[in-house]
């Protein structure tokens, strides 16, 4: 009865299409960014790299910037925080897919990071971290001289 008030449209075709588009990466199409639910990793992280920096993009929707903690130690980045409940009023749950609670995750970074120059930006529930690679860890071109 309760669900009659709001019913989700089953966009079956869209989802089937999505399943095939994401073939091979299917698991990442899961809608959940859930902490503490099953084996789902939270938060989810994408890593990128260019010659000067490593970049991390972390999905932390609904987490306040002040509840986030970021630690860089040698070649690892550790993220911890808490996603808090919004309301405490009496309610009947109809759907509960978002998780709540504390989380922590450590990610291995490629190469040594200059921890003093790490910059983190938080925007719309996404954390963008720029991790500069240490000078001595950068690849160096060695010129070969012909004699």
């Amino acid at each position, binding site marked *: 009865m309760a669900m009659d008030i709001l019913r989700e449209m089953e966009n079956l075709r869209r989802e089937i299409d999505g399943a095939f588009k994401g073939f091979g990466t299917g698991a990442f199409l899961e809608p959940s960014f859930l902490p503490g639910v099953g084996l789902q990793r939270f938060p989810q992280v994408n890593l990128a790299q260019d010659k000067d920096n490593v970049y991390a993009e972390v999905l932390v929707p609904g987490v306040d910037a002040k509840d986030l903690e970021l630690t860089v130690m040698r070649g690892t980045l550790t993220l911890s925080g808490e996603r808090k409940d919004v309301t405490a009023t009496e309610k009947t749950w109809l759907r509960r897919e978002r998780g709540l609670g504390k989380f922590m995750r450590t990610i291995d970074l490629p190469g040594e990071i200059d921890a003093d120059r790490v910059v983190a930006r938080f925007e*719309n529930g996404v954390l963008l971290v720029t991790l500069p690679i240490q000078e001595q860890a950068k690849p160096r071109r060695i010129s070969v001289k012909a004699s």
Partner: protein
Amino acid sequence: MGQKDISVHGAHEVEKRQQSDEIFIRPAVDIFETEEGLTLVADLPGVDKEELKIDLDQGLLTVQANGKSLMNGDLIRREFLHGSFYRQFRLSDEIDSENIVAEMKNGVLTLLLPKSESARPRRIEIKTT
């Protein structure tokens, strides 16, 4: 399961899909009911208020948003994909569609869907004589 609705919407969908090869992601949602109405909470990380589209057309609520990556460099590890968020719900007449309130904070959308007066529970006073 509302077969009719699916086919009606399908007509729009075909059009849209021909234009692009986008990936659609169903955002995770929490929905709960109180005496005043329903609250829908959706995770939309990376979505700006301006990019969010909420439509209500004949009781069909559509939440749609474009997500994009702000990251530079070459990807070396991927745990999630960027795509458009898309999810639809059918609301009953019991929702007062004129007074829906939407709020976006930290990549989370909160939609307050108030019940119409007639659908609210009413306390009935018992008079003692």
